[in-house]
Each structure stands twice: as C-alpha cells, then as structure tokens.
C-alpha cells in the first residue's frame, strides 16, 4: 500500500524545517467526472495535526480550497536529532492517515 504522505525533514541547528506532501484528491464537489458527467463528491482533508515528541505544535483546520495533494512547509524550533515529528490528518469522510519521522 502506498504511503499517504512524503516527509522531508532538515535539521539546521535547533530548527527543523519540515516539508510534507500529502496524497489526497481534495475534491471541491464542483468538479464533474469527465466520463459520466456526474459531480464528484466533496472530499477533502479537514484537520491536520503535527506533533513534536508527542506534543501538538500545529493544529490546522482546512477547507476544500487547499490544493489537491496538499503541500505544507513548517518549522519547529527547539528540535534535535532523535526527535520525532508526526503528521496526522482526518478528512470529511472520516478517513485518517498519519506518518512519523525521526529527525537526523
């Protein structure tokens, strides 16, 4: 099964620069299926949580207006090698995904 997201973490001193690419259609509900002509239902990530060693550092609420295959870049201060950063999301259908990376 393919990973739900790709994480790229760079540690510069005590700053961890994290780039995440999530695989999700982020359907607006306004797009028509080119073959059937039917509207493709609304399907988007509503909630994103980032933790650093288990502590929440970011709690984001999203709308369907975040681009398909969401990309997000954020930075955590006070980071060091061995720290764990986890990214989790939940979408409007209740599906969830989570991935953790260890800073190096």
């Amino acid at each position, binding site marked *: 099964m393919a990973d*739900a997201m790709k994480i790229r973490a760079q540690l510069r001193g005590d700053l961890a620069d994290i780039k995440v690419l999530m695989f999700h259609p982020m359907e607006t509900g306004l797009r028509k299926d080119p073959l059937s002509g039917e509207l493709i239902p609304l399907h988007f990530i509503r909630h994103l*949580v980032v933790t650093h060693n*288990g*502590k929440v550092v970011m709690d984001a*609420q999203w709308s369907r*207006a975040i681009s398909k295959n969401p990309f997000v*870049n954020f930075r*955590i201060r006070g980071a060091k090698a061995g720290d764990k950063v986890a990214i989790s999301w*939940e979408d409007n259908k209740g599906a969830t995904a989570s991935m953790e990376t260890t800073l190096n």
Partner: protein
Amino acid sequence: MGARSVTSSVQAVGFPSRRKFLRVLALGGGCLAIFSVGWLRCARLLAAEWNKAAFDATALADTLKDIGANSVSESDQIQLKAPEIAENGAIVPIEITSRIPGTQTIYVIADKNPQPLVAIFDIEPGLEPFISTRIKMGESSKVRVLVKAGGKFYAASQDVKVTIGGCGG
C-alpha cells in the same frame, strides 16, 4: 554545525480513531488524551472543532465575524508571499511569516472564493509562525492573511490575478 537533509525512520502509524481523538479542554494543569497508538503516549491535545460556520460563510464580513475578528488592524509585520499572477488557480503557492509576538493563529482567506475562508493554522509553542502551502482560487482576488496574537487580529493582503480559475466546475 552543517545542515543535514535526511528523512529517516518514516513509518506509518494509525491516526487516533475519532472516538479517541478527544477534544480536551485544558483546565489549569491540563488534561491528557490517550491514543490507541502505542508510540504516541499521553499528549495534551487541543483538537480544535472544525469551524463549520466560518468555513461555510460566503460573505467576507460573515467569515470575519465567525472567526471572531471583530476588529482587525493592518500590520506590516505579516509577510505574505504570493504570485502576482497565478497561471493555475488550482495551485497558488503562498508563504506566510508572522513577526507579531505571540502569534497564536494564522488564517488564510481568498476574498472571492465561494467561501472566503481557506484555512486556519493554530500555532502552538515550538512552531515558528511560518506556513507555506498551496491554495485554490476561483478567480482573481485579494488573498488575505489574518494573525491572531494576544487575542487581537492583524492583517495583511495581496492581490493575486488568476488566469484559469481553480475551483473545478
């Protein structure tokens, strides 16, 4: 100390199930939410409820009201980087840096989207007040960034021209 660019030990773990993704109100000292996933031990979780009213609002005035932004001051301490012209409205890159001390929340708004509110980022201690992401814009519009700090709202904005709208349809 040089920069190291390695992503190691990436592993997929289960997102806490919705029942266990508790909304915890920190009451002097904090409460703990326990997840079913082993590695995530106990963590104080401030799971914000999805702000349906604000995300459903179609008029900018209602969006601002629904996020509690009754009074907003323009600020030059919010840096917003967005293209002047976005070829593809489905992918408009934006980068936000807030230099306002005590930044708690960053809001992203596209005035002319069917619903102006695009995203809300709660910045907890440890996170730099910096976000870079990509948004959809239905048509040329002001992109507005609001920052909540110390209970007050500050804003910066930039006009972004869109050649092909990004909402679908």
